[in-house]
C-alpha cells in the first residue's frame, strides 16, 4: 500500500524529524495513526448520519446499522491493528537502554495508538449513525472491550520479534486448551458447576498464573531461559488482563460490587477515574514485566 501521494508534506517532515531525533516515537507511527483517527472521526461524525437507516422508518432497520457500520468497523479496525503490529515487527528497535519511565511511556504510546485506531467508531455513537439507545449501549460495551483488549497488544511490539506468527497463534491456542484442561480437572474434584467449581476455578487460575509467572521470572533472572520460557512469558502477557479481574472476586462479594457500581452512577466521573486508573495500573504492570523480560532476552538464551 503506497499512501505517499496523499500524505501531507508537513506531516512527512514531522515524521522525518521524529526519525532523526526520537526513533522510538517514530517507530510507533503515532503521527500517521493520529492523522487517520482525526480524519476518520471527522468524516464519520459529519457524514455518518446521511448514510445510515433512521429508526423512525423501520425499528428493525437499526439492527442492520449496528451490523453494517459498527461490527464491520470493529472488524476492519482489528485488521488495521494487525497491520500496525506488522509495521512494529518490521524494524528492530533497541529498547534495552531505555529507563523504566521511557519504557512505560512507549507502552502508553502503543496503547494510545491502538485506541486511536478505534476512536472513529465512537463517532458513530455521537454522529448519529447509531440512533437507538440499545445499540449505543452495545457500542459502549464493545468500546470497553477494546480498552481492555488493547492492553496486551500494546506490549506486543517489544516482544513480537522473538516469535514467529504461527508460534504466537499456537501459544494462544494451547494456553486456551490448558485452561480448559484445568477446568476439567477442577470439575473432576467437584460434583457439579454449582457454587463449588465457580468459586474454586478463578483461584486455581490465579494460582497457575502466579506459579508460571514465578517460574518464568526465575528462569529469566538466572539467564537460563529457553524458547519455551519465552512462550510462557508471552502467554502470561496475553492472560494478565483476564487474571487480574478474577482476583477481584476475592476482594469481596461480586454482587456488592455491582450495587456499588449503581451507586457510583450518580457520580459517574468516579467511574471514569476508576476505570481508566485501572487501565493505567495494568499498563504499568505490563511495563514492569515486559521491560524485565526484554532486558533479560538481550542476554543469550540457553537454546
Amino acid at each position: 500500500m503506497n499512501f505517499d501521494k496523499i500524505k501531507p508534506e508537513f506531516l512527512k517532515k514531522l515524521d522525518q524529524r521524529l526519525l532523526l531525533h526520537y526513533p522510538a516515537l517514530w517507530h510507533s507511527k503515532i503521527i500517521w495513526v493520529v492523522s487517520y483517527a482525526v480524519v476518520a472521526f471527522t468524516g464519520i461524525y459529519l457524514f455518518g448520519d446521511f448514510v445510515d437507516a433512521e429508526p423512525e422508518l423501520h425499528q428493525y432497520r437499526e439492527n442492520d446499522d449496528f451490523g453494517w457500520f459498527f461490527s464491520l468497523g470493529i472488524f476492519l479496525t482489528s485488521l488495521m491493528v494487525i497491520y500496525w503490529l506488522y509495521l512494529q515487527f518490521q524494524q528492530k528497535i533497541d529498547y534495552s537502554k531505555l529507563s523504566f519511565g521511557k519504557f512505560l511511556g512507549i507502552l502508553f504510546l502503543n496503547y494510545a495508538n491502538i485506541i486511536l485506531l478505534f476512536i472513529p467508531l465512537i463517532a458513530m455513537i455521537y454522529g448519529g449513525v447509531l440512533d437507538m439507545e440499545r445499540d449505543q449501549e452495545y457500542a459502549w460495551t464493545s468500546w470497553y472491550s477494546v480498552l481492555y483488549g488493547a492492553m496486551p497488544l500494546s506490549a506486543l511490539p517489544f516482544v513480537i520479534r522473538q516469535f514467529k506468527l504461527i508460534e504466537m497463534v499456537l501459544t494462544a491456542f494451547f494456553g486456551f486448551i490448558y485452561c480448559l484442561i484445568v477446568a476439567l480437572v477442577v470439575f473432576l474434584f467437584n460434583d457439579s458447576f454449582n457454587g463449588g467449581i465457580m468459586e474454586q476455578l478463578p483461584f486455581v487460575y490465579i494460582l497457575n498464573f502466579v506459579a508460571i509467572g514465578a517460574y518464568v521470572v526465575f528462569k529469566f533472572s538466572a539467564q537460563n531461559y529457553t524458547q519455551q520460557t519465552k512462550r510462557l512469558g508471552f502467554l502470561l502477557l496475553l492472560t494478565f488482563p483476564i487474571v487480574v479481574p478474577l482476583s477481584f472476586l476475592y476482594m469481596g462479594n461480586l454482587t456488592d460490587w455491582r450495587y456499588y457500581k449503581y451507586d457510583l452512577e450518580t457520580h459517574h466521573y468516579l467511574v471514569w477515574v476508576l476505570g481508566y486508573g485501572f487501565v493505567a495500573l495494568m499498563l504499568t504492570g505490563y511495563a514492569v514485566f515486559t521491560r524485565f523480560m526484554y532486558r533479560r532476552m538481550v542476554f543469550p538464551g540457553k537454546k
Partner: protein
Amino acid sequence: MMNFDLIKPEFLKRADQYLLTHYPMIWQTRIIWVAFYSLSLFTLAYLFGDYFDHEPGEILYPDLDVGYNHYLVDRQDRLAFGQIPLFLSALAVFYWLYIQYQHKIDYSKLNVAGFLGVIALNFACIVLILLPAVGLAFSAFDITRLLNEVLRDVQITLTLGLSAAVLPFIIREFSLIEIVLVVFAGFVYCFLIAIGLRLLLGINFNSGVTGALFLNFWVFVAIISVRFYQKTYTQQTKRLALLCLLSFTLAFPYALYLLDVYPNVNRAYREIAHRHHIFTLKWLAANIFVVLSMYGMFVYFMYRSLLFPIKRK
C-alpha cells in the same frame, strides 16, 4: 515446536508415508491426521460433553432470582460449548491452511476432475475440523433452540469458509500481510461503494447495494479472466483474484435470488442461516456442490495461468 509423534499410531504413520510416496496431493491435504484428530475429539466430545454442561434444571446462583439464573445458564453453555469450540475450530482451520502453505505442490498436471477431487478432499478436511464442535453441541445442549443456534453458526462458518478449500492452490502466491490487506481493502471498497450509492442515488443497503456489488464482482471476474487468459497479469491482478475468491460465497446467494431460487435477497442470505432448517438438501446442493464446482473451475484456470511468467513485479 509441537511434537505429536508419540501419540500417532504406527499404522497411520505408515499410511501417511505411503501417501507421501504415491499420492502426494492426497498426502498434502493431511486427511489422515485431520480425520484421526477430528474423529477422536468428536468421540470424546460426544461421549463426555454432557457431563460438563449445565442441565436445564440446575441453578447457578441460588441467591439471584430464577429468571436471571436460567438466562445465565443458557449463556454459559452457548459460550462454553458452542462459540468457544467453534472459535477454536476456526483457528484449527487457519493452522491447517498454514500446513498447506508449507510445501510447494505441483498441481499443473491435474485436469479439472483432479482439481475438483483435491478441492473435495480439502473441503472434507474442513468439515472434519468442525466436527468436534458439532459433536460437543449435540452432546451438551439440552434445549433444541440452543442446539439449532449453534448448528446454524457452524453452517455459517462452513459456508463462509468454503474458500478455504481452494486457498491451498494459490496460498503461496501471497505473503500473509498481503492476504490481510486484500481482505481489508475489499471490505473498505465495498463500504465505499455502499456509501456512495446511498449518498448519490439514495439506494438502500439491502437489495440495491447488494445488487451493485454483485455486478461489480462479475466485472472484476471478467477483468481477471481476460488478464490471466492473455498472460498479462500482474501482482495486483492476483490480489484481485484472491479477493474475488474470498468473496464469492458472499456474492453467490444473490445469484440464487436472481435465478428465482429465493423470492427476495434477505431470504437468499438467511437461507444459509435458517433457524429451523439447517444443512438442508437445497443448501448442500447450492452452497456446497455448486460453489465448490465453480471454485474448482476458476482456480484450475487461475492456477494454470499463474504458471506463466508474471508481467512485472
